[in-house]
């Protein structure tokens, strides 16, 4: 499985990368995005097809096929793949939707389930050698966090009214002279929390793949095959850890999205 990674790194001549001043720059180029199909900018926005866009399309088509082909197996007693998918969906409902979103929670189930399965499939697709992780791109995770922000805050504003929504940033029992400061900090905190949501997923995915490529790139940097005796088992162990981290990060992203939506909807203050 790592022969492809090894060959793709080995066939990359470090001196030909040009703009990198030493040989280690070729490691980063395997994790970054690159344009596959150039499209001229429309209204100033560049919408060229890049590698991560193609990976997102593959993940979407895989999910659409998976769920629509399993629909036949649903019924009173699901069997086969429908059974597995129903188990996962029920797990998300009991662990994420019910504790944090209460009785209104099924309204947000389409978005949260889509986010969970999309992030999970994107993360796991990146572990295949030759394919890339769409979620290791800050644009992708940033878009998901922006979606969570808009869905949560607009639901909160619609439920509570704009005045009461603004008042919910000020916890009760705060002395008068620090009230503007606390309000400001809580207000900025909403943006910070969603930004951290994007960065957490992006940094976890990028770091996992970067460190696997770094371990294998050490063989190239040291220019000797003896390093492979240490580097390849290390890279195997880190790749298996990356599988675990992919699952956990998908769950954490969905759970924190549900928590933030629940905070925007809550009426405790």
């Amino acid at each position, binding site marked *: 499985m790592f022969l492809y990674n090894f060959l793709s790194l080995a066939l990359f001549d470090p001196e030909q990368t040009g703009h990198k001043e030493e040989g280690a*720059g070729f490691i*980063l180029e395997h994790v970054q995005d690159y344009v596959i199909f150039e499209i001229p900018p429309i209204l100033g926005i560049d919408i060229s097809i890049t590698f991560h866009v193609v990976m997102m399309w593959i993940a979407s088509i895989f999910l659409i096929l998976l769920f629509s082909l399993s629909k036949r197996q649903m019924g009173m007693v699901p069997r086969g793949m429908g059974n597995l998918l129903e188990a996962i969906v029920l797990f998300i409902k009991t662990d994420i939707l019910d504790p944090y979103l209460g009785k209104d929670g099924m309204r947000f189930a389409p978005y949260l389930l889509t986010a969970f399965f999309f992030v999970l499939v994107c993360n796991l697709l990146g572990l295949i050698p030759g394919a890339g992780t769409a979620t290791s791109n800050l644009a992708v995770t940033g878009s998901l966090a922006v979606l969570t922000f808009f869905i949560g805050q607009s639901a909160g504003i619609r439920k509570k009214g704009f005045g009461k929504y603004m008042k919910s940033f000020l916890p009760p029992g705060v002395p008068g002279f620090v009230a503007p400061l606390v309000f400001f900090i809580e207000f900025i905190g909403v943006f910070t929390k969603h930004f951290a949501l994007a*960065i957490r997923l*992006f*940094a976890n995915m990028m*770091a996992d793949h970067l460190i696997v490529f770094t371990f294998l790139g050490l063989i190239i940097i040291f220019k000797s095959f003896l390093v492979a005796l240490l580097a390849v088992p290390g890279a195997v162990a880190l790749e298996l850890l990356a599988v675990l981290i992919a699952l956990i990060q998908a769950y*954490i992203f969905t759970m924190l999205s549900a928590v933030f939506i629940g905070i925007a909807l809550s009426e405790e203050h």
Partner: protein
Amino acid sequence: MIDFSLAFAYLGAGIGVAGATIGCGIGIGKLASGAMEGVSRQPEAVGDIRGMMILTAAMIEGVALFSVLVCVLLIFATKTIGS
């Protein structure tokens, strides 16, 4: 005149990752010790504690990865004088 900008960038990245690893190690160590104590007090809560432990460990690691991100940016995006 020697240009030290790359040297300082690599040094800063190394020290930054060291600090992040120390903080993350201490944090997850305290988390693990609390989890062990909880399981030893009430062995039938193992399932709940295990789930929460893995979840909060991943979130603490997320904070360490914020600083790893900054250090990777330091390594790969520092320009030397004249480029």
